[in-house]
């Protein structure tokens, strides 16, 4: 059976950075990604990133993917990429991982170490008529529009005013689509205020304390019914009908953690991180001594922190493999934690920090050998 010193599952911002960091220290890396191209969600991000210059602030997401993939080229002798390949399951009995490449090519790999950078799944909310064509997740809308150049509709109602809902609304307008409104159940926008201001000044209304209760239409979406809700989420007042042909849901993400469950990692439900996540130490290592996590699968956050977590995980694997001197490891480890601390210090980061405190154990950070 094929073996590898390090398997990275997922080629988004976290997985790419983990691969680069580990390969930089001389580790041979195998990276699998279910998509045809690497980059994960970065390739659809046409907006400029926040953060500092370390996280490519002011650079558009797809450009960041280009930058990371260029770095990949320089390390291509150490990184084996399998795209269009899904890691299906972990078998703790023999430490193997089952893979599916394409439609029918099944194979197995035995990794000595693994970094799970599997990202997230979209959440949806239930409402009448949500089976109708025209009801989309924001990820699908972004894929259609920004990856394939397909306009998803002409009049879009966005559900959710988090960063994804606000940014995708702006991107839809850039693609010439009319965004008829953004619906948000909370009493304020959940995403960055500046992203909201950006769509407001182009005339898009944001309906705070509203939710969608019904999609109208017999064979496709022709409209949506909204209700005002009170602070306890009970409907109040009269329903409001809006004409639209797309209802786009951006109501949150949950960490994609199936493989971590299968591998037997200690898991914990942490609402601030949006679902079940693996307990981990400061090196991003899980309770399984050979499995690390990074990015959204470790808790929903921004791509900028996913990149830093990827670096941390890659560094820690290389250290565990004896490729990084202790003092160098400590120096970089502290540097990356400094960056994460900066990224999480804002208003939006408070919740994330609370979640991370619950997910973090203090005691494990030690060499692999000691825990075998």
């Amino acid at each position, binding site marked *: 059976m094929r073996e590898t010193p390090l398997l990275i599952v997922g080629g988004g911002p976290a997985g790419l950075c983990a691969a680069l960091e580990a390969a930089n220290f001389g580790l041979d890396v195998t990276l699998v990604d279910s998509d045809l191209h690497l980059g994960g969600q970065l390739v659809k991000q046409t*907006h*400029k*990133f*926040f*953060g*500092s*210059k370390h996280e490519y*602030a*002011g*650079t*558009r997401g797809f*450009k960041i993917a280009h930058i990371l993939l260029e770095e990949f080229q320089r390390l291509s002798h150490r990184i084996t990429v399998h795209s269009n390949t899904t890691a299906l399951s972990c078998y703790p009995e023999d430490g193997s991982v089952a893979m599916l490449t394409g439609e029918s090519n099944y194979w197995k790999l035995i990794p000595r170490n693994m970094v799970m950078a599997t990202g997230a799944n979209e959440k949806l909310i239930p409402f009448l008529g949500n089976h109708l064509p025209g009801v989309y997740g924001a990820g699908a809308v972004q894929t259609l529009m920004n990856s394939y150049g397909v306009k998803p509709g002409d009049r879009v109602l966005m559900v959710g*005013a988090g960063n994804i809902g606000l940014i995708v609304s702006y991107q839809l*307008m*850039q693609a010439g689509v009319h965004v008829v409104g953004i619906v*948000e159940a909370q*009493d*304020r*926008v959940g995403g*960055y*205020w*500046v*992203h*909201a*201001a*950006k*769509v*407001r*000044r*182009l*005339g*898009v209304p*944001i309906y*705070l*304390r509203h939710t969608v209760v019904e999609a109208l239409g017999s064979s496709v979406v022709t409209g949506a019914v909204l209700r005002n809700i009170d602070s306890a989420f009970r409907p109040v007042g009269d329903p409001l009908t809006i004409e639209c042909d797309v209802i786009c849901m951006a109501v949150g993400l949950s960490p994609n953690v199936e493989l971590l469950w299968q591998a037997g990692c200690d898991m914990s439900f942490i609402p601030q991180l949006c679902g079940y996540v693996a307990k981990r130490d400061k090196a991003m290592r899980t309770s399984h001594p050979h499995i690390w996590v990074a990015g959204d699968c470790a808790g929903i956050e921004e791509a*900028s922190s996913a990149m830093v977590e990827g670096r941390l995980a890659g560094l820690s694997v290389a250290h565990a493999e004896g490729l990084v001197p202790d003092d160098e490891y400590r120096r970089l480890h502290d540097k990356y934690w400094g960056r994460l601390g*900066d*990224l*999480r*210090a*804002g*208003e*939006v*980061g408070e919740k994330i920090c609370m979640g991370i405190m619950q997910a973090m154990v203090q005691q494990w950070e030690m060499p692999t050998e000691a825990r075998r």
Partner: protein
Amino acid sequence: MNHPEYDWDFAAGVLTGEREGAGTPPQELWERKKAGLVIIECPQRIPCNPCHTSCPTGAILPFADINDVPSVNYEKCTGCALCVAVCPGLACFVADLTYSADLALMKLPYEFLPRPTPGSTVALLNRVGERLGQGKVVRVVEPHKDKTLVVHVEVSKQMVNDVRAVRVEVLS
């Protein structure tokens, strides 16, 4: 919605008065500063600092914490609009009040097609997208060659505190 004190507009992304991170330049300096001064509308603490790192004169002060809202030394601002072009939140604008007796020249970020052309007129929009009138485009630049344009447009001085976007109106 029984919160008379709750600012629903601000909560939905509309600036409703000056606050930290979203102030206007001192009037006296503003009226005499050739090429204009920056107006920043960034009232929320988020991890972001390209306005400071791109500022060539140090007018946008260093951030002690990357989450700080920006603060400006207006004396040093030259109205160059590099921050307008770099800000991921499109929250920086420049207004030059020395442009003419009754017109200001505003430098606004723009990321749509078609591109405005110098000499044409564009619609002037306020913070909720209402069309306040139209203005003549004087210049269109792309300082960082990254598809964010800075549109220099003539705006009546009374509207400087309201105009925050332009729209190219295509005749159909």
